[in-house]
């Protein structure tokens, strides 16, 4: 019940609970038209129900943070820094917090100049500020496909034209990128920046040499480089660029985006950017207009947390990070096992070496937006449909993003069992309707065996393979038929970071019936 406006006393003479929007309709900026919602995003908002097992969120598991430590840190901030915590802070962030950022980045092997850092209100603000500083309506951004669903509405709000490049198992294929850049150039267009979420396979050196050759800015969104469960850490694009320049200075083509959301808490709303100084200045001006400064309360909380030592003298934050890695990698394994148990032969999925998500791609005849509607309704389980990671809202239609980090093991198992059940039912129905057996691997056989008079669904569905979009391009290395169950699609593992509720990312606006 909507208690806020119910009950006697409300009503007559009371102030209306909401402004009448119609009066403002003519006042809205044209950019609000491109802040479009979609039926798919609105449906995602419905997955936030207590009775639904949601593998849709982008959440880390904050229940693992010790309540006593939280209380102690908050008391410390309250007692030791009362006036500072309650006061405005500098726009670019408090020195004590920037020191923590330097420490986090050093842990990733990236040395930075503290004067090139700006502390932001979550990593999301960096995306917003970079667009604010660089994007005029119609400007081009190049992004991976799939990309971070939370960046899609931001790009839309700035009326950017986004060219998405389908990834293969190594990330964004450079030759594809070259083709897109040439095509843009032929139209006299030049991307303002390349938005990339470096994943655990991405050969950053290749990306950076291209960026350098073409003098292109790169926005490196790296929310969980430290959440690596196996394999050797790869250098950040930022550090690669700085290395080329030598002299121990910062990068000049990379804007680095970091966040405390995944290694500590998204509730603090603290992220940061490290950027070339001229860009940094514009980000700073943009941030002044946006929120003056990020919360000193949470900045001081971070500083206090980074000062914490273990009984053994080690850094407390490192120990917590290790604890998270153990927990998340176990949950990842549980999900991978559940995928193998419950998903049909022709599904394929990433086997991430880190991060929070698995990207799974089903038979191309299944639309995961429809699947979500059915799974939520009939099974009480939710995931992010692949389309959310595509700016056109249509590609990626047979893929889904699954969060394994924020969900207990038994919920992962049960959730995957439920999704698997719905998928099997849909495949069986498609098989019956098209007269083929419900497996795209056997489509040719299914088509050959179909009864006379039934539609030849199998054949054309096979022809369509790879066209429907959704994950790996057919024919690319490690894609399609080469990647069987649990196949090594690890490159895609961390392409999509979503540190927020599905509903928060969606700019809900017009919905005309």
């Amino acid at each position, binding site marked *: 019940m909507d208690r806020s406006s119910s009950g006697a006393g409300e009503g007559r003479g009371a102030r209306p609970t909401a402004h009448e929007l*119609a009066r403002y309709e003519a006042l809205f900026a044209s950019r609000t038209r491109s802040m479009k919602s979609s039926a798919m995003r609105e449906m995602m908002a419905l997955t936030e129900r207590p009775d639904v097992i949601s593998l849709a969120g982008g959440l880390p598991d904050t229940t693992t943070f010790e309540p006593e430590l939280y209380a102690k840190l908050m008391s410390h901030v309250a007692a030791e820094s009362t006036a500072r915590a309650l006061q405005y802070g500098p726009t670019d962030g408090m020195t004590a917090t920037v020191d923590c950022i330097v420490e986090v980045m050093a842990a990733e092997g990236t040395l930075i100049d503290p004067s090139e850092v700006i502390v932001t209100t979550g990593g999301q603000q960096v995306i917003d500020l970079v667009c604010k500083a660089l994007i005029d309506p119609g400007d081009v951004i190049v992004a991976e496909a799939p990309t971070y669903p939370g960046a899609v509405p931001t790009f839309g709000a700035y009326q950017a034209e986004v060219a998405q490049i389908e990834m293969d198992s190594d990330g964004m294929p450079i030759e594809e990128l070259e083709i897109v850049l040439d095509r843009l150039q032929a139209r006299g267009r030049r991307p303002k920046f390349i938005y990339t979420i470096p994943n655990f396979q991405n050969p950053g050196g290749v990306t950076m040499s291209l960026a350098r050759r073409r003098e292109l800015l790169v926005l490196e969104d790296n929310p969980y480089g430290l959440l690596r469960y196996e394999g050797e850490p790869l250098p950040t694009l930022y550090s690669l660029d700085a290395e080329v320049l030598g002299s121990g200075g910062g990068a000049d083509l990379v804007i680095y985006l970091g966040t405390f959301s995944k290694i500590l808490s998204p509730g603090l709303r603290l992220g940061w950017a490290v950027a070339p100084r001229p860009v940094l200045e514009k980000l700073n001006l943009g941030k002044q207009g946006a929120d003056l400064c990020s919360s000193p309360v949470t900045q001081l909380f971070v500083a206090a947390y980074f000062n914490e030592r273990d009984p053994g003298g080690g850094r407390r934050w490192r120990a917590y990070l290790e604890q998270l890695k153990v927990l998340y990698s176990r949950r990842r394994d549980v999900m991978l096992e559940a995928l193998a148990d419950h998903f049909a032969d022709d599904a394929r999925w990433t086997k991430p070496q880190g991060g929070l998500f698995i990207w799974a791609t089903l038979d191309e005849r299944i639309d995961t937006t*429809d699947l979500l509607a059915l799974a939520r309704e009939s099974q009480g389980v939710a995931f992010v449909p692949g389309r959310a990671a595509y700016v056109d809202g249509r590609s990626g239609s047979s893929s889904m993003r699954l969060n394994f980090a924020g969900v207990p093991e038994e919920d992962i198992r049960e959730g995957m069992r439920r999704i698997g059940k719905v998928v099997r039912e849909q495949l069986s*129905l498609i098989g019956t*309707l098209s007269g083929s057996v419900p497996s795209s691997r056997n489509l040719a056989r299914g088509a050959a065996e179909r009864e006379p*008079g039934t539609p030849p669904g199998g054949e*054309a569905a096979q022809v369509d393979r790879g066209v429907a979009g959704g994950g790996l391009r057919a024919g690319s290395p490690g894609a399609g038929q080469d990647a069987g169950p649990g196949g090594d699609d690890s490159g895609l593992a961390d392409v999509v970071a979503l540190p927020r509720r599905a509903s928060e990312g969606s700019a809900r606006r017009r919905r*005309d019936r």
Partner: protein
Amino acid sequence: MNEEKKVAVLKGGPSLERQVSLRSGAHAQEALVRLGHEVLALDVGPELVPELRAQQPDAAFIALHGRDGEDGTVQALLEAIGIPYTGSGPAACARCTDKALAKYLMREAGVPTLDFHFLREPSVRQLGAAHAVADIEGRLGFPLVVKPASQGSALGVKFARASDQLPSAMVGAFSYDDKILIERYAKGRDLAVSVLDGPATDSTRSPPGRTGARRAAPFALPVVEAVPREEDFYDYESRYEIGMTTFVCPAELEADTAARAQELAMEVYTLLGCHGVARVDLMLEAGGDDLWVLEINVVPGLTETSLLPQAADAAGIGFDELTARVLASAWTR
């Protein structure tokens, strides 16, 4: 009309159209407050009936879209607990929400509606319905539109250009409803005609909670045209996507075409037994003057950008007046 009433605005709920419903409800609430009524806003859930019984409103203003709110479920409940409500009764709701039923009734009555076939999911599993698909294709030809029989939003509406696309289109639609329609695709202009009961008489004299006011004859509001913003739209679904469409009201039509659209809307309104208000969606097929009735919405959207308020406005009926008239329908049954 101006007597203060205690009005429960029912909105939200778990349907896929929850967000629109919340906005419709909020918009109606504002108007009801301005009209001097006491407003009780209810986001419907398991507490709906207990809450209504406890609060005993004079009427329920239904701003629910989709399942429960539009299919007669809530209307029947309200009748069970004796609370007057706005709009159509359970039977009309059922007839309109089930697009297949509505189309069968229209076809029988000679109302032009695009040729279609109806299919239930259990029949695929239990009656070998897959073997009928080729016949359906043969009869309707391609391209085809597949839609869930009772889904109001764009979700689940699929387009199939050829046989091979039909099975997944059907399964997509079955994700929302076990009943689907397979319909001939027609290209043309999307029109909507809202029908409103005339101003009620004597409603102020009937005691709260009692029916008895005289219902005035319904009339059609000006035709609205939905124009896709992007002409080169990629697929059928996108024309339903938010922000892809602009609305023209009154639609720029030949006078007799507009009149025919209005007549058809009125005919359908009466045929299906609608009450208070409804919106009838039509198509003016390209390359001719064929008008087809697509579907009927018994709880039209009331958001600031919805079609019904725009059409009412074009007829000189402001939103408050529109809301008052819809509310009055609670006592004219």
